[in-house]
């Protein structure tokens, strides 16, 4: 039996570049940075004082204080993005989605803000004063459960925690659910809200973060010789995946097709990529084979491109290994240069970028790319967006733990 084709019929997002899809896209193609000094807490004791925060969003105003205070910020962002996506797909968010709809969400560290708060209270006031909602806010599947409750999603649910590959894996597993006929609709996405004091401090301890505190907007510089680490960011992005048959039967608009998914594990080191990006090569190869495509078909690669010295060098090697001579022709960019690293929310956001790029025929740039690194010598679309008719895009996501998730999108 041939697999069912999977389309995307709705998009929703809240991230450092905007609180909806159109603002985010405008800022992406205009090369705007969403990175700035941290405003949500005092950074005086931290070695890194900037991040990509969501701006102008008041959860109390959006969902009412009584509901908002029961959720971690990651839950607020998830529900906000999911509601946008469902509306965009033509569903009524007041109605229950029912058992023909599944949900797959990715996150790296779940409700880490709630964890930090609860530990602080425990230390200062003891066990009897811990917030009784702490567990339901901090568990990694909290957003999955809260979104399902809010919109009555009764089909299968999964929460995927493969660090920075989490929501690429979420979109991929959701694609498999629809291909295999388990459900017709899946709400797939990813969320992270780790711009919190302990989390910034802990990532800084492993020297993963850029420390360019004086120039936040220029700090994330993927593939640039002077790159010095990633920039923490928060946000949520949700895609409505649907069988082509289901979408067409209700005359839904179609952004594009998810045609390939590859998932592999380095099994090498908990943070460092395998030499030459060996696991990434296998994931890209599997995703193309799943899509029945070859490297010659790929028009655009939305790179993982974190701006860490190790990732960008190894991802470049991996692309060269798989693509051969074609590596120097394919258009590549890292939109993390503008959003920062959305961690478990990155794969879903960058899936959205791929779909919009194909639909609109525009490749968003890699900003802050000014100094050539001899080890990163491919075409990364430096600093300015490029107009180009395209049909196939690939999105790379690689996570701590050695997890690799690659997705392939088609306009037709």
């Amino acid at each position, binding site marked *: 039996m041939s697999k069912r084709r999977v389309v995307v019929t709705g998009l929703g997002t809240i991230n450092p570049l905007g609180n909806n899809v159109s603002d985010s896209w405008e800022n992406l193609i205009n090369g705007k940075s969403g990175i700035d000094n941290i405003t949500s807490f005092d950074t005086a004791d931290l070695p890194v004082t900037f991040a990509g925060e969501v701006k102008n969003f008041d959860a109390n105003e959006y969902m*009412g*204080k*009584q*509901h*908002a*205070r*029961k959720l971690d910020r990651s839950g607020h962002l998830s529900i906000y993005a999911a509601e946008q996506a469902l509306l965009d797909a033509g569903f009524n968010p007041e109605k229950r989605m029912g058992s023909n709809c599944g949900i797959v969400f990715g996150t790296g560290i779940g409700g880490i803000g709630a964890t930090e708060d609860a530990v602080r209270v425990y230390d200062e006031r003891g066990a009897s004063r811990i*917030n009784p*909602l702490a567990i*339901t806010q901090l568990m990694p599947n909290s957003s999955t459960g809260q979104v399902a409750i809010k919109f009555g999603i009764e089909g299968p649910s999964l929460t995927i925690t493969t660090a920075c590959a989490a929501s690429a894996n979420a979109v991929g597993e959701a694609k498999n659910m629809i291909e295999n006929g388990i459900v017709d609709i899946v709400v797939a996405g990813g969320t992270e809200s780790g711009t919190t004091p302990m989390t910034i401090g802990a990532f800084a301890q492993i020297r993963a973060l850029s420390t360019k505190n004086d120039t936040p907007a220029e700090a994330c510089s993927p593939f640039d010789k002077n790159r010095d680490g990633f920039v923490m960011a928060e946000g949520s992005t949700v895609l409505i995946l649907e069988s082509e048959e289901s979408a067409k039967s209700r005359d839904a608009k179609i952004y594009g097709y998810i045609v390939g998914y590859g998932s592999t594990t380095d099994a090498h080191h908990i943070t460092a990529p395998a030499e030459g990006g060996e696991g990434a090569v296998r994931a890209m190869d599997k995703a193309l084979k799943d899509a029945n495509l070859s490297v010659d078909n790929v028009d655009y690669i939305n790179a993982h491109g974190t701006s860490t010295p190790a990732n960008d060098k190894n991802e470049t090697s991996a692309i060269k290994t798989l693509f051969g001579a074609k590596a120097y022709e394919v258009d590549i960019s890292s939109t993390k240069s503008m959003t920062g690293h959305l961690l478990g929310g990155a794969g879903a956001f960058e899936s959205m970028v791929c779909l919009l790029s194909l639909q609109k025929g525009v490749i968003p740039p890699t900003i802050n790319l000014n100094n050539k690194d001899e080890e990163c010598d491919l075409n990364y679309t430096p600093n300015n967006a490029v107009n180009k008719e395209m049909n196939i895009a690939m999105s790379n996501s690689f996570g701590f733990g050695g997890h690799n998730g690659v997705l392939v999108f088609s306009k037709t």
Partner: protein
Amino acid sequence: MEANEVFEKVKGLFVEDLGIDESKVTMDAKLEEDLEIDSLGIVEVVMAFEDEFEIEIDDEELADVSTVGQAVNLLHSKI
């Protein structure tokens, strides 16, 4: 402290801390049905009461409390 003062303090906690609509907080209001305070919420309410009135409330004492009025009476008897 008079019972009506206890009620006003309880109302203040519900409105300020829990975000409940002020007009819903009456002596007859049912905690679960009217104020949408679920089993997790009750634990929060008890913590807020304990902090506000500097008392301790055992779980058994809560068994018969399902309305704002019953909560006010329990608190009034313990202060």
